[in-house]
Structure formats: structure tokens, C-alpha cells
């Protein structure tokens, strides 16, 4: 699992969790305010509070979850990254559409007038539009998902491998060589590579020699190519 894809997932989760507490967009004012929450517009007018749920608001976070989750669920093809980027863009555009809903149907001109027994009352209610923190997280998610799509989620470079056994496994996986994991190492064909402290041991039949990582990889490939090639799985390997 790539760190880049995990980061994308983390941003999607952060966006939704943050949004539960902080509005993505709001018109803030003293006695009148509108806050865009995951469940709709929360409109406060003096002591009254109403929730206006435009259907598009649900699409915003549903698409954001998809954009974060899809690269983790579907790891075979790089198309999953394309689709995730599309979802994040759709999420952002649904958010914009929901904000436009307010401008179109909940427009507010900054005052209210009410009749009274002897005349009328005019109350000035100035408001200020504010983009909330979750919106910036969503923007970051969209940017990252597009970047991941362009780089096949490989912009962090090679993963640092501290365990040489993992490095051997990685090579075998890439070459679709079937191997099995054994106690402290891997077994390919007739040879075993085990880790002993900081060095590697190669066991072939009854002989056991100390080898470096390069030799261990070469020997396992040699052994592996002798056996039938099977289909393995490499993250985002396919076109």
C-alpha cells in the first residue's frame, strides 16, 4: 500500500471529520448566519434555527470518501487513481454548486423588516461570507489526487527498505515469481534466504553461506525462474 494513497485517504477522512465541526462555508453575522454543514445549510435567525438540506450537499462528502477510499480498495490498475481524481473534482464542484444554491435560493440582503402594532421595524443584519477550513482540506485532497494520478502515486520516491528480506520479496513480486514466506525469510524453489542479524544467509540443501543482498536477489531470481511463472499482483502496475 503506497503512502501517497494513504495520504489521500487521510485527507478525505480529515475533510469529513473536520466538516462535522466546522462549516465549509458560512455567512457569519450577529443575528443571522448560514453555515454549510454535511447535513445541509444551518440557518440561524435570531433564536430560530432551521436546517435546509439541498441534495447536492450529500454528494460532496460521498464523492470525497470515494476519492480517498478507491485507491486503497482498487490497487491493481492506475485507473483507480484516475477515478479517484475525478471523484475529488466532482466533490469540489458539488460543494461549489451547493454554495451557489445559497446564492440562488437562500439569498439574503442583510436586513429584515417586520410589521409592528404601530408601524414597522427594520433590523440591519450585515453578514460576511467565510470559507471554512474543511474547504481548504478538500482543495488539498483534489490537488493530491490529481498529483497522484499524474505520478501513479509514486512521487515520494522509492520506499526506504530497512528489511533486506522485504527487498527480496519486492523483486520477486515484481517478476511474478512465486515464493513462500518462512520463519525469518523467504523460500524460492530449492533455496532459502534467511536473515541473521544484519546479514543474510543462503541455504541450498545442506550448505549454508553468508551472502549480501545483491547475491541473495540474484540467487532467488535464478531459482525462481526455474519454476512456472504465475500471475502476481503489483500495486498500480498495470496500464
Amino acid at each position, binding site marked *: 500500500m503506497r503512502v501517497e494513497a494513504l495520504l489521500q485517504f487521510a485527507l478525505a477522512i480529515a475533510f469529513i471529520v473536520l466538516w462535522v465541526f466546522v462549516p465549509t462555508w458560512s455567512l457569519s453575522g*450577529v*443575528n443571522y448566519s448560514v453555515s454549510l454543514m454535511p447535513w445541509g445549510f444551518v440557518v440561524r*435567525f*435570531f*433564536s*430560530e434555527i*432551521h436546517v*435546509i*438540506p*439541498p*441534495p*447536492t450537499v450529500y*454528494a460532496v462528502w460521498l*464523492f470525497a470518501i470515494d476519492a480517498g477510499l478507491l485507491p486503497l480498495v482498487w490497487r*491493481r*490498475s492506475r*485507473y*483507480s487513481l*484516475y*477515478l479517484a481524481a*475525478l*471523484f475529488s473534482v*466532482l466533490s469540489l*464542484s*458539488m460543494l461549489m*454548486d451547493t454554495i451557489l*444554491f445559497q446564492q*440562488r*435560493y*437562500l439569498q439574503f440582503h442583510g436586513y*429584515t423588516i*417586520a410589521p*409592528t*402594532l*404601530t*408601524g*414597522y*421595524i*427594520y*433590523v*440591519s*443584519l450585515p453578514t460576511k461570507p467565510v470559507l471554512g477550513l474543511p474547504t481548504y482540506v478538500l482543495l488539498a485532497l483534489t490537488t493530491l489526487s490529481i498529483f497522484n494520478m499524474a505520478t501513479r502515486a509514486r512521487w515520494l520516491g522509492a520506499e526506504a527498505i530497512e528489511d533486506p528480506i522485504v527487498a527480496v520479496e519486492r523483486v520477486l513480486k515484481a517478476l511474478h515469481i512465486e515464493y513462500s514466506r518462512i520463519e525469518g525469510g523467504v523460500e524460492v524453489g530449492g533455496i532459502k534466504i534467511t536473515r541473521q542479524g544484519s546479514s543474510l544467509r543462503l541455504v541450498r540443501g545442506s550448505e549454508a553461506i553468508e551472502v549480501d543482498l545483491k547475491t541473495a536477489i540474484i540467487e532467488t531470481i535464478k531459482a525462481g525462474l526455474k519454476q512456472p511463472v504465475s500471475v502476481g499482483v503489483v500495486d498500480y502496475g*498495470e496500464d
Partner: protein
Amino acid sequence: MAPNPFKITLLISILSIAITLTLIWGTAQTAPNLIRYSTLSNAPYIKVESINVTSNGVYIRLAIINNGALAFTPTSGWVKVVETGQVVNVTIINGAVIARPPLTPQWVNLASVGVKGIVSGILNGSRAYIAFFDVAPIHIINTIGITNVSYADCVLNVTLSVNTVVPVVIGPIINMSLFTVSTPGYYVFETVGVVNTTVYAPAGSHNVTLTIRVSLALGRYTYVYSCNYLSGFSKYTLWLPIGVTYMYPTGNVTNYTLLTKTFIVGGGS
């Protein structure tokens, strides 16, 4: 055989874009049912509490009726009296909203006036303006009181402070007396019957003096015990039941009122 990822991606893309378009269209369709209209209920309003016409001017007192949770605090405003055309700014005195147009001759003819205006202030932290129009009856307030009394050589001088909206004729006096404030009390003089001394005061605030020579000439039942203050007594009360005729443009109105004054000879209290 694994399905072609390109086909899957294309299918899901088209599907999700179709979903968004449907949602946008659906939201626009349902919007009129989703939104709701709200207006202020139980908003504060303004009534004219009282209009007092005095010789010093007209006092229009406005009452702010806060009949809900919303509290209005006035800061400024103006009123216009429809009948006289006067426009004045209001002053806020300890939360009371008071307008003070000057007294003009028209006021004396009126029984009630229409008052309109705007009071601005703060409603729950928001700037608000209350416009109003109200009709209220007028109370004309005339006051007459004794400010100073002197008695020497059988001549009684009474200084009256007259604050009236219309000219007045003060007098006659019925059954007046001057007596000591002591136990027992002693009369200096007393009259039984009507003393036809009158004094005229124009509209406004004035001091007028009634001068009465206290003697048997005032009437048969006039008892004069002393022509000066009694020796040994310094505190006296003047009892002065008197008629006051207000000369309204619509006709004269005579009221009888009791004026009293307790005083100490030579000042003090």
C-alpha cells in the same frame, strides 16, 4: 478473465457525472419546497405613552414595548407631530425616550395629536430602526403655587408662581386664614366669605403678586387679631382657597383650588 479497467473507469465516470447532473437538477426542482420564510414575531414597537403640555414646553414620552425575548435599546431618533408640523429629535433619559417640541399656540386647541417618527437603537446586538405612528390624548398641565408670603401692617403680599399654558385670572379668594404652626395655634386673621381680589397672569411661567389689605372692609366676617406677625411665633401657615379661571380659546374654565404655604418669618425652614 478480469474486466478491462479502462471500461470500468469509463462506466463509473459516466455514472457519477450522471448522478451529479441529476442531483443539481433535482436540487433546483426541490429548492422552493426546501427553503422557508421567516420573519420577526413579537418585535418591539413604540407607543406614545403620554403627551404633557406645560408652560415650559410639550413633553412627548415614547414607550418601547418589548413583548418578546428581543430587547431593544434606543439610541436616537426623531418625531413629527402631525397637527403642528413640529419635528424634533428625541433624547434618551435613563432609557426613556422623550421628545420636547416647544409650546406653540396650537397646542391649547388640541385634544389629541398624531405622532410619527423613527427611533433607532440596538436589537440583540444588531442595528435596528422602529418606525411608528400613534395618536395620543394631550394632558395640559397648569400649576399654580405660593412661593412667598409676607404680612405687615395688615397688608398681605402673596407671590404666586404661575405656570400655565393659557392666560389665567387668579381669584376670588374664599375663606382665607393665617395662623401659627404651634399647639395651640393662634389666628393672625381669618375671613369668612369671598374676597374679590383678582390678579391676571399671561400664558407661560410668571410670578404674580396678590396684595390684600386685611381689614373689616373685606367683609362682615373678617377677624383680624393682629396687623403684624404675633410676637413669640415664627412659623405660620397661610390657607388660601382660591378660584382660577383659565382662558382657553374655546371658553373660560374656572377651577377652585386650595393653595397653602407654611413658612418661617425671616427665612429658614
